[in-house]
């Protein structure tokens, strides 16, 4: 049993972090022969029939291809291949590694690659693919394709961890899954079918977030791409239009709060307030209740507020007639919370961004969150 790591073994953490971030962010074309060889081996490991392999140029076309084929053939997603691969790896590690060692490698190697690749890229790809798939296909197909999703190179975090155990601690692990992650992009695995996809042609990262102020931040050779600012996928015009050419009024057309945040960051809160003839009705701390000119003869209240964690401004609508910050904040509470009495001696509650958390059976709550981040 391995119960601890030597200093020399610990000193090799950065090597595996760097290696797998590079693999996770690779923009090389897929190594198709290698990928196919690996996936066939993994199906064999799981005692499954060799699958038919179909290639698609990007995760979106892969998901749509998988949707169509699933709908035609009803390929099963009840697939033991993932669990077979994981159990082969984990049982090999668990049998010889003490949990403290496991945690030490996990917290340094896996988490660093996770932040740089999975959080930065895979989550955006997954969300973008499924927003299209959900609207394009039946929900049964959507959930089947969801189950079939494997991140390929974008799931490099767990392979970084596995690679360390394999090469540094000399644990005998079947390395086929590591080879697969090194050779292709996202894949969709069904019984008898695998839809494999290419890696991106361009990945633009800043501070571990998808970000490009001039062009798409993530681009595939198929032409499918995502525009992103500071990790938020945004409409292309918000990236491609120069700040001074953007009409500040377009802020109010964006339905998504994170996209509005990036709009405010790009255009500037002062220019938006000036252009929308903002009139301050009330202010408390980092909150300012503004009356904005919608451009159609109406003036309506919006709450301007600061994200205290990252220092960015948000502007969100509140109902007509709201004329104080207190009323605006009360309106913003989830409906179930509004029925609970407000009392200075009430129970504590918490708010993280747009999520409120309160004691389930509270009879009364404090007027403001005890912790706000």
């Amino acid at each position, binding site marked *: 049993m391995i119960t601890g790591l030597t200093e020399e073994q610990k000193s090799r953490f950065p090597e595996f972090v760097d290696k797998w971030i590079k693999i996770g962010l690779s923009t090389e074309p897929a190594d198709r022969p290698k990928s196919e060889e690996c996936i066939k081996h993994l199906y064999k490991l799981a005692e499954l029939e060799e699958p038919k392999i179909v290639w698609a140029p990007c995760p979106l076309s892969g998901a749509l291809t998988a949707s169509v084929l699933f709908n035609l053939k009803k390929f099963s997603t009840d697939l033991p291949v993932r669990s077979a691969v994981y159990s082969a790896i984990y049982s090999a590690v668990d049998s010889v590694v003490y949990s403290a060692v496991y945690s030490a490698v996990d917290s340094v190697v896996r988490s660093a690659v996770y932040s740089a690749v999975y959080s930065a890229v895979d989550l955006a790809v997954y969300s973008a693919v499924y927003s299209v798939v959900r609207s394009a296909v039946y929900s049964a197909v959507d959930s089947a394709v969801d189950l079939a999703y494997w991140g390929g190179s974008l799931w490099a975090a767990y392979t970084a961890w596995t690679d360390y155990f394999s090469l540094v601690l000399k644990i005998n692990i079947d390395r086929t899954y590591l080879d697969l992650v090194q050779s292709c992009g996202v894949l969709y695995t069904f019984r008898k079918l695998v839809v494999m996809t290419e890696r991106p042609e361009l990945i633009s990262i800043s501070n571990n977030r998808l970000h490009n102020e001039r062009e798409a931040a993530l681009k595939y050779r198929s032409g499918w791409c995502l525009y992103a600012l500071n990790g938020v996928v*945004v409409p292309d015009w918000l990236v491609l239009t120069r700040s001074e050419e953007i009409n500040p009024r377009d802020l109010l057309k964006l339905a998504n709060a*994170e996209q509005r945040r990036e709009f405010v960051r790009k255009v500037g809160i002062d220019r938006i307030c000036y252009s929308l003839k903002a009139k301050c009705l009330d202010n408390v701390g980092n909150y300012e209740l503004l009356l904005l000119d919608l451009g159609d003869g109406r003036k309506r209240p919006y709450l301007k507020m600061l994200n205290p964690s990252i220092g960015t401004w948000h502007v969100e609508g509140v*109902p007509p007639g709201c004329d104080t910050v207190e009323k605006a904040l009360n309106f913003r509470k989830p409906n179930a919370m509004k029925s609970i009495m407000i009392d200075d001696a009430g129970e504590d509650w918490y708010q993280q961004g747009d999520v409120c958390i309160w004691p389930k059976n509270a009879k009364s709550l404090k007027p403001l969150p005890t912790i706000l981040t």
Partner: protein
Amino acid sequence: MKKLEKPVLAEGEVTGHAHVLEDPTIEVFEGENGLREFQTESPTRVVHEEHNPIEIPVGNFTSGKVLEFDHFAEEARQVRD
């Protein structure tokens, strides 16, 4: 109430970022009204990629998303992020 696969209180649609209970053993249930409920047996943190963590004490909790008013659709709705 539907038990969720992961202890997630809310997911973002354009970032994939999520408000997540750091203790993976906590079970989160979602009601038809979209509210999520969970129980903590020791203090646990809620983490998110773009907000500082918050620590939740021991107890039974409900979580829900804040509202905003869309002046063009003239309706209140949950904030989408």
